[in-house]
């Protein structure tokens, strides 16, 4: 499993005859992505790398029954390309182009949301980006510009505002044999179609994703909101990183959204928000693989324990349990607690602060699954049904 794209993805490339569009079409095909159509107005009837080119997205949709589109159209026309894809009924629209005026993105965002309808966070259509590297589901499909050779299939969902920093971290994960379900670059613009919360909801709903790595950066308050969301709704372990700890206020750091304004949007505030939500924060990128590996290990152990416990309690607890069974459960619980404490002990010695954060993380997460277990599952099924 994965999120948003997989081997069933049938992709349209908007701007396929341009320099970037043509190059990355080749790269996506080489990775095994099923590119079914290209669109460049005025170039209909031609082909590019063996892919038929159409004059409009509507025509391409009609002819090829595509289910996703990726946009490499130059900035002045990119928002229009999003509108065109949304109007043609494309369910997943990924805009790679950078440099879109915010006003244009805002209008395109509202178009996509109006098509989706209210209160449908996991629904379609979905816009990813603009100004993002796209996404890749290792071994299945890539939509965008992420390099294919750095990813490998596995249990980790990766979501990031950045491009090359994502590559850096994904490569470090892969080098440590920590594979990925899907790597998603949401982009660094002030207005984006898919934010951290959407991505977290998607990964939470994906049964194959066991842990999540989230990479934010200075500017705005998306990280603070993500931290809140994780505390309330995410049962899977999350590790966070925030770029721009040394960035001065008032200076735009490359990305249109990466600016500290009026004392808000600093890395320190974002890191504190994650820590307060029980999410371990990596100080430097190379800490990420170790942190997520440890949390995954702990989650797997806990799950095994839960399964073992469930097997012992064959009868559901709510049926008037016999006094004997109650006694047994009570005996089991303290033993397990002790076992867990032992495991946590060495980590505490090594890095007291981080261990404390993790301890908090565990406490909050232990409570969360019980409340959340029933609810997100039903939501997930509903979303998948659509």
């Amino acid at each position, binding site marked *: 499993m994965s999120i948003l794209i997989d081997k069933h993805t049938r992709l349209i490339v908007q701007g396929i005859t341009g320099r970037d569009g043509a190059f990355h079409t080749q790269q996506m095909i080489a990775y095994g992505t099923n590119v079914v159509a290209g669109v460049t107005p005025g170039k209909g009837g031609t082909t590019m790398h063996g892919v038929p080119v159409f004059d409009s997205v509507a025509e391409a949709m009609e002819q090829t029954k595509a289910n996703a589109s990726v946009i490499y159209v130059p900035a002045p026309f990119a928002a229009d390309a999003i509108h065109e894809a949304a109007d043609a009924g494309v369910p997943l629209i990924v805009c790679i182009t950078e440099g879109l*005026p915010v*006003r244009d993105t*805002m209008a395109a965002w*509202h178009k996509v949301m109006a098509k989706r309808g209210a209160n449908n966070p996991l629904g379609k259509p979905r816009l990813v980006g603009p100004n993002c590297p796209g996404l890749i589901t290792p071994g299945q499909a890539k939509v965008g510009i992420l390099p294919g050779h750095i990813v490998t299939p596995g249990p980790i969902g990766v979501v990031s505002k950045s*491009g*090359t920093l994502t590559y*850096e971290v994904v490569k470090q994960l892969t080098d440590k044999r920590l594979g990925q379900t899907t790597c998603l670059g949401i982009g660094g613009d002030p207005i984006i179609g898919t934010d951290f919360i959407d991505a977290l909801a998607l990964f939470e709903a994906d049964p194959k994703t066991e842990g999540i790595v989230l990479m934010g950066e200075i500017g705005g308050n998306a990280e603070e909101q993500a931290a809140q969301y994780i505390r309330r709704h995410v049962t899977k372990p999350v590790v966070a990183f925030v770029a721009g700890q*040394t960035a001065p206020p008032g200076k735009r750091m490359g990305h249109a959204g990466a600016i500290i304004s009026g004392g808000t949007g600093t890395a320190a505030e974002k890191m504190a928000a994650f820590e307060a939500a029980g999410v371990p924060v990596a100080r*430097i990128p190379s800490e990420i693989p170790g942190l997520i590996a440890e949390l995954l290990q702990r989650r797997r152990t806990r799950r095994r324990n839960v399964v073992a416990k469930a097997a012992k309690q064959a009868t559901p607890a709510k049926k008037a349990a016999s006094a004997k069974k109650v006694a047994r459960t009570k005996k089991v619980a303290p033993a397990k607690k002790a076992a867990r404490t032992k495991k946590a002990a060495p980590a505490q010695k090594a890095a007291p602060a981080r261990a404390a954060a993790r301890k908090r993380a565990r406490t909050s997460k232990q409570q969360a699954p019980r409340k959340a277990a029933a609810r997100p599952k039903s939501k997930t099924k509903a979303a998948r049904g659509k």
Partner: protein
Amino acid sequence: MNLHEYQGKELFARYGLPVLPGQVAGTPEEARDIAAQLGGLVVIKAQVQAGGRGKAGGVKLAHDPDEACDRARDILALTIKGLPVRKVLVAKAADIAKEYYLSIVMDREKKAPLIMLSAEGGVEIEEVARFAPEKILKLHIPVEGLRPYVARSLMMQVFPDFAQAQQAAAILLKLYTVFMDGDCSLAEINPLAVTTEGRVIALDAKVSLDDNAEFRHVDWDHWRDPEDESGWSRLAREKGLSYVKLDGDIGCIVNGAGLAMATMDLIKHYGGEPANFLDIGGSSNPEKVTAALEIINGDGHVRAILFNIFGGITRCDDVANGIVASLKESPLPVPLVIRLTGTNEEAARQILSDFGLGATTSMDEAVRMVIARAQEVNA
């Protein structure tokens, strides 16, 4: 890009917003001529992009042209919050009865422009927000636009006099047009003033423009003040590099904004100080690499330079070629540490080693190395 007050007022006037007549002056003599032209009481205002100009002595009244000349001379000698005053605005003065605050800002979270309005004008809005947030009225503008009745009813909540509320509503509607047509990320009037005759006018203008929209605004170029940018910043912008000068001594050249920030953070983490933020962007034009080296060498006190390249669209061999071409032309006065990985990494390594340069693949290792090299230079 942030506009100066006089530029913001120029933009406002174009859309029919009421501003008091005035002109910008670079010398005391020019200020005198403008004051003579305007006649009567004038106000001289320092044109720097900083709040609290009044408190810093950057806003003065003058009763006649000679006084305007003297006041302008005083103000042009000031430095306000580290910014030297190079220009003053000379404008007709008004008798103010009451000051309000009005702005439209892009709210990235709600994906909509946000109107902020307050009867507490003339002070910095951040102060009001901190101590009396209930005194700021906020309203998001829906995607279909701002209706006149909405503007009117908003203003009626703040202006006790209906005629004034109506004038203010007209100003808000025009300000919204400025904001949308002008691709602003902020359009602020502080104070929005009511004169003793009951006229509502924009006494100040603070405008930030969305740089991404420059392609459809041919007029923006003339607003860019060449003196606001150092020569190096201008070169960076012209070459499509994203560059911010910092105070440290380790220069860094990175591809991608996120990785560039993370590189700066890592330098700090290992005990160094970054000299800059520099993102060479996605394409790997060797010319950009040359320009990047030139900028970092020229601007500031760099003791060592780090290249951190993760090849995706950027091809490592292109960067290597750029480095070699640049070094052939002018050898570097400081040590260079290169980290390359990703697309065409092998070819890049070959190009560098033919030139006698090494490269590492680990970012952590490269950062520790460049800090060590910088310290050697220090010693």
